[in-house]
């Protein structure tokens, strides 16, 4: 039962150093047609696999077989399990093999067999294509209602999405992987904080804010406008008037309406703001509608992930923000940032601050390619205002600093004079001490003399007396 079929790896994958793919690389190539029966497809991140040897990958993920803690768990046994499982699968690659099938045929304890099986499945060495079919089967099994595909989206709509990685509530946008039933918030997705064996391209972006609320029909929009005319700012009443939409929904939708620009302070570039809102509407719809990864997105996603690996927190933050906002919006923002920079360069240079932002924005710019500059003007003005503020703040701070320095100088002078005084007093004290000492000495001297004289006089007296 040797595996006679050659292992074909999908074309278009770059050469990978055998030691690097210890974590599955994010690039997953296009799925090739698997029509030939003799060829087995293996994902590119598993190309280290060979029947003849054990790679570092396996040692790392299944250490129990390699640390000689248990006498019967040795590499030979591991290879026996692994080879039999893989051969079993490859006999019929289009059929998904289950763990139970396999463990019935293998001699050994079921715990370790299960671990090897899971490892092989995660790395796509078995059950690589069968997953597509079984997904539908599992969906049917888990759904209680016999509804159509709507039920799957309904399921997602009604429940709040919790991220599998960091266990926080997903807001705005999240990334869902149907293959392994994972949900990640944008931050975890960018950081690559997902299970081993899941590549970033398995995820598709799910916009919570757009998908969770259903589309606004014309009727509802009309209702909304009426309500706003009547109730003005009282969003609670507006929400009540519009059937089936919460306050927040009303507000968000209202802002997104094309004429929302009237409520923003008029600037010279109001038409650009107008464009901005249209563009927000369109990409968000496009993204929320597209379930599967389109033709262009994988390439953009590929570019996203290099940033995800950046250790620089600013870059990670930029990647996170762009993942959150969506691909097109991120490109727009990047464009805007680039034009801002070119404008700012004309004005007074700011030094290191600008260098940082330039790096950041250059990084973000490299993320996107498209040529929309709707957001450019707005952000340019915003940034110029910010710079003015910064200038003012700097001046104020330098003034304060000067005053404080003067204070300190005065204090120093005073202290110096005090010091001098103290020195003089000290000297005087010393002199007085010396004088005192001299006096004491003389007193003692005289005393001793006096005593002698006294004795002599006493003697004299005595002798006189006697």
């Amino acid at each position, binding site marked *: 039962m040797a595996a006679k079929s050659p292992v074909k790896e999908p074309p278009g994958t770059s050469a990978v150093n055998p030691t690097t793919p210890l974590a599955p690389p994010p690039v997953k190539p296009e799925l090739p047609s698997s029509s030939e029966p003799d060829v087995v497809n293996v994902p590119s991140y598993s190309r280290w696999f060979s029947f003849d040897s054990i790679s570092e990958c396996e040692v790392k993920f299944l250490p129990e077989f390699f640390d000689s803690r248990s006498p019967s768990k040795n590499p030979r046994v591991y290879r026996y399990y692994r080879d039999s499982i893989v051969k079993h699968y490859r006999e019929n690659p289009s059929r998904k093999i289950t763990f139970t099938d396999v*463990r*019935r*045929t293998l001699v050994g*304890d079921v715990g370790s067999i*299960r671990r090897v099986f899971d490892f092989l499945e995660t790395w796509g060495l078995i059950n690589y294509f069968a997953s597509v079919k079984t997904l539908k089967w599992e969906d049917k099994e888990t759904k209680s209602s016999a509804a159509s595909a709507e039920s799957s989206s309904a399921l997602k709509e009604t429940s709040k999405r919790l991220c599998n990685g960091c266990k926080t509530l997903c807001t705005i946008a999240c990334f869902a992987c149907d293959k392994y039933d994972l949900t990640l918030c944008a931050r975890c997705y960018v950081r690559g904080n997902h299970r081993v064996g899941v590549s970033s391209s398995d995820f598709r972006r799910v916009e919570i804010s757009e998908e969770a609320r259903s589309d606004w029909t014309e009727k509802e929009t009309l209702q909304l406008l009426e309500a706003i005319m009547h109730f003005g700012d009282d969003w609670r009443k507006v929400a009540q008037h519009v059937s089936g939409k919460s306050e927040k929904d009303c507000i968000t939708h209202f802002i997104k309406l094309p004429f929302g620009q009237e409520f923003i302070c008029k600037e010279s570039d109001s038409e650009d703001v107008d464009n901005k809102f249209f563009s927000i509407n369109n990409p968000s719809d496009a993204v929320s509608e597209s379930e599967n990864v389109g033709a262009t997105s994988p390439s953009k996603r590929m570019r996203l992930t290099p940033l995800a690996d950046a250790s620089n927190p600013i870059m990670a933050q930029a990647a996170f923000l762009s993942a959150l906002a969506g691909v097109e919006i991120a490109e727009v923002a990047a464009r805007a940032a680039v034009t801002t920079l070119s404008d700012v360069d004309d004005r007074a240079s700011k030094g290191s601050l600008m260098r940082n932002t330039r790096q950041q924005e250059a990084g973000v710019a490299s993320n996107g390619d498209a040529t929309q500059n709707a957001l450019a003007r707005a952000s340019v003005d915003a940034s110029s205002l910010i710079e003015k503020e910064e200038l003012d703040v700097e001046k104020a701070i330098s003034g304060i600093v000067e005053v404080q320095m003067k204070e300190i100088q005065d204090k120093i002078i005073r202290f110096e004079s005090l010091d001098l005084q103290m020195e003089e007093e000290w000297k005087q004290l010393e002199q007085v001490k010396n004088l005192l000492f001299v006096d004491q000495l003389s007193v003692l001297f005289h005393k001793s003399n006096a005593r002698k004289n006294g004795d002599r006089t006493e003697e004299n007296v005595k002798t006189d007396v006697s």
Partner: protein
Amino acid sequence: KFRMPTADNLVPIRLDIETEGQRYKDAFTWNPSDPDSEVVVFAKRTVRDLKLPPQFITQIAQSIQTQLTEFRSYEGQDMYTAEKIVPIKLDLRVNHTLIKDHFLWDLNNYESDPEEFARTFCNDMGIEDPEVGPAVAFAIREQLYEIAIQSVASAREIKISKKGRRGAEHAISSKGGGNALDLMKLFRYNSSVVRKRKEWYVYEPIVDILSNEEVDALEAREDRNTR
């Protein structure tokens, strides 16, 4: 101290659960040092793979857990480890393969490996059905487990009887570990280690491939026996 007299301390687990007219029979080896969370994971996996109704999950998990706890309850106790070469009999049917065998096993050899034996057995006998190997290993393990339990009981009895070495010998003979005694008799005099020809047939492994009708007949008989 109690442990399975094999290289790895694995527990043979047998499952025979019947719910709602569906019967699930299985036998496999479990590593008792795996965390208990594994039990539920395994149960869920099995139910999912075999498409059994979900009530099986709890029952399977419970059954496994019970057997594991029983195994662990023996763990601290003493085992009587005298000279013990015991006969192991294999008499099992896996799908279409019928296996009968009879061989001797050294209980004191803690490096023994039923899995290795099973693998070699299948290779040597040219057995094609891959499910036979685990079944053979399981059967061996089960018998070893039984014997180990008995030796714990006999150790207890010896302590109680307090007769010392002679008492131990008596205990052995009364326990049906008389096989060990027979061997000592065998090797005492000028008998050779080579088995007598007339006894060869007893110890010969027999592997039969059954046809479908025979399999059905046997299954029917087994079901009747168990009910």
